[in-house]
């Protein structure tokens, strides 16, 4: 009898696992592709390994290029405006964010510090060094700024979030290393995987218009949401192929209609959720054509609601109309 139950349980588990691995045949939203740029050879505005992007208060798009060790500034039609940085200024610029008063913050993944600039690229200051203590980093991959100007940083290899004032004074940190078992992640729609406040390589962060802090807990394949004091609010996702699941959650951005856009690196798509984490829609798949991606790492939304996807492996930015999304 016991054997019968055991084999039924095994069958059930394998069935669920099978379901999780088969990509559900969902009707994909037709991506409203507008324009792409960066991949073509050019002295002005060519991209090698674009990693992150953000739209500033004056409507410019700022992009970090980790390989070229630069920050590039474009208008919303992809027209090159200016660039700054070299091997002396950056070792590997990854995360980028802009405050409401127009200051640009960049995280340097290899040098383990945060740099602050004016919108024309004039250097103001930097803070941080390698380590595990307060104000120290092991690969700050991404950052975000709240309405008060405080800066939040994903400290990737320390598996935590650190919060600073706009001048770089340490305020607080939260989270520690904790990997969610893959099976538990896949089956979390049956049994909650728990592990709130634990991260496994948190790669991206963003502050919503409501002031909540969203973190891509990338290798736990989920998104966790916190208040500005680091108190856990909610989470969603889990490993998988179908809508609402992730295979390495990456860039986060917010639309004017309350939509939350999350880039899904290995699934090569962008997913749309509401603020509570309810899955709404998605677009994109693997490839080099417009509307296809090779590892989307960053997202940004402009004042019109149009969406910019950092298509890392295709060395380009793709712009999509936000009208239907």
């Amino acid at each position, binding site marked *: 009898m016991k054997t019968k139950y055991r084999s039924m349980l095994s069958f059930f588990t394998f069935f669920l696992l099978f379901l999780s691995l088969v990509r559900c045949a969902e009707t994909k939203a037709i991506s409203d592709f507008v324009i792409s740029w960066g991949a073509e050879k050019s002295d002005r505005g060519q991209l090698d*390994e674009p*990693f992150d992007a953000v739209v500033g208060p004056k409507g410019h798009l700022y992009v970090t290029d*980790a390989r070229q060790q630069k920050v590039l500034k474009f208008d919303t039609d992809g027209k090159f405006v200016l660039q700054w940085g070299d091997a002396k200024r950056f070792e*590997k610029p*990854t995360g980028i964010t802009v405050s409401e008063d127009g200051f640009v913050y960049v995280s340097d*993944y*290899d040098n383990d510090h945060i740099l602050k600039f004016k919108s024309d690229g004039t250097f103001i200051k930097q803070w941080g060094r390698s380590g595990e203590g307060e104000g120290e980093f092991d*690969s700050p*991959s991404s950052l975000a700024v709240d309405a008060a100007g405080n800066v939040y940083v994903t400290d*990737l*290899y320390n598996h935590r979030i650190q919060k600073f004032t706009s001048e770089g004074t340490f305020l607080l940190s939260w989270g520690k290393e904790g990997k969610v078992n893959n099976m538990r992640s896949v089956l979390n729609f049956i049994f909650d995987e728990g592990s709130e406040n634990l991260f496994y*390589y948190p*790669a991206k962060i963003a502050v919503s218009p409501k002031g909540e802090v969203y973190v891509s807990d*990338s290798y736990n394949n989920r998104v966790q949401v916190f208040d500005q004091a680091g108190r856990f609010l909610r989470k969603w996702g889990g490993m998988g192929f179908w809508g609402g699941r992730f295979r*390495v959650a*990456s860039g986060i951005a917010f639309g004017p209609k309350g939509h939350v856009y999350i880039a899904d*690196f*290995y699934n090569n798509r962008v997913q749309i959720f509401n603020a509570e984490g309810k899955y709404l829609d998605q677009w994109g798949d693997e490839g080099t054509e417009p509307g296809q991606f090779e*590892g989307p*790492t960053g997202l940004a939304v402009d004042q019109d609601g149009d969406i910019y996807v950092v298509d*890392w492996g295709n060395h380009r930015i793709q712009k999509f109309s936000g009208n239907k999304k």
Partner: protein
Amino acid sequence: MEIEKRSRLLLVMMLMLIAPLLTQSAKAEEMSAEISIRVDGLTCPFCAYGLEKKLKRLDGAEKIHIDIEKGIAHIQVVEGKKVEEKDLKQAVEDAGFTAKDIIYGRPQK
């Protein structure tokens, strides 16, 4: 007695033949200008950049190139310097990976 002598002589001759090969191999390890490490799971920048960073910090490592498609980390070594295998393995482990093979010199295509 004669047989024992002959065996010893044969052993000495074999050692003499093998010794240069062993020395050469050790020298290749010590003085190789390039080291390649096969690493599984190297497909996204979040982790590939981490591996690049950890390898870059090794004493003697001059230039790092991560071939994400092939899953190989190439390390160019400073002339006359040696990068220890245990340090290479540790750096790969610190980056969250396991070193599958460490090849001294350029890998065969």
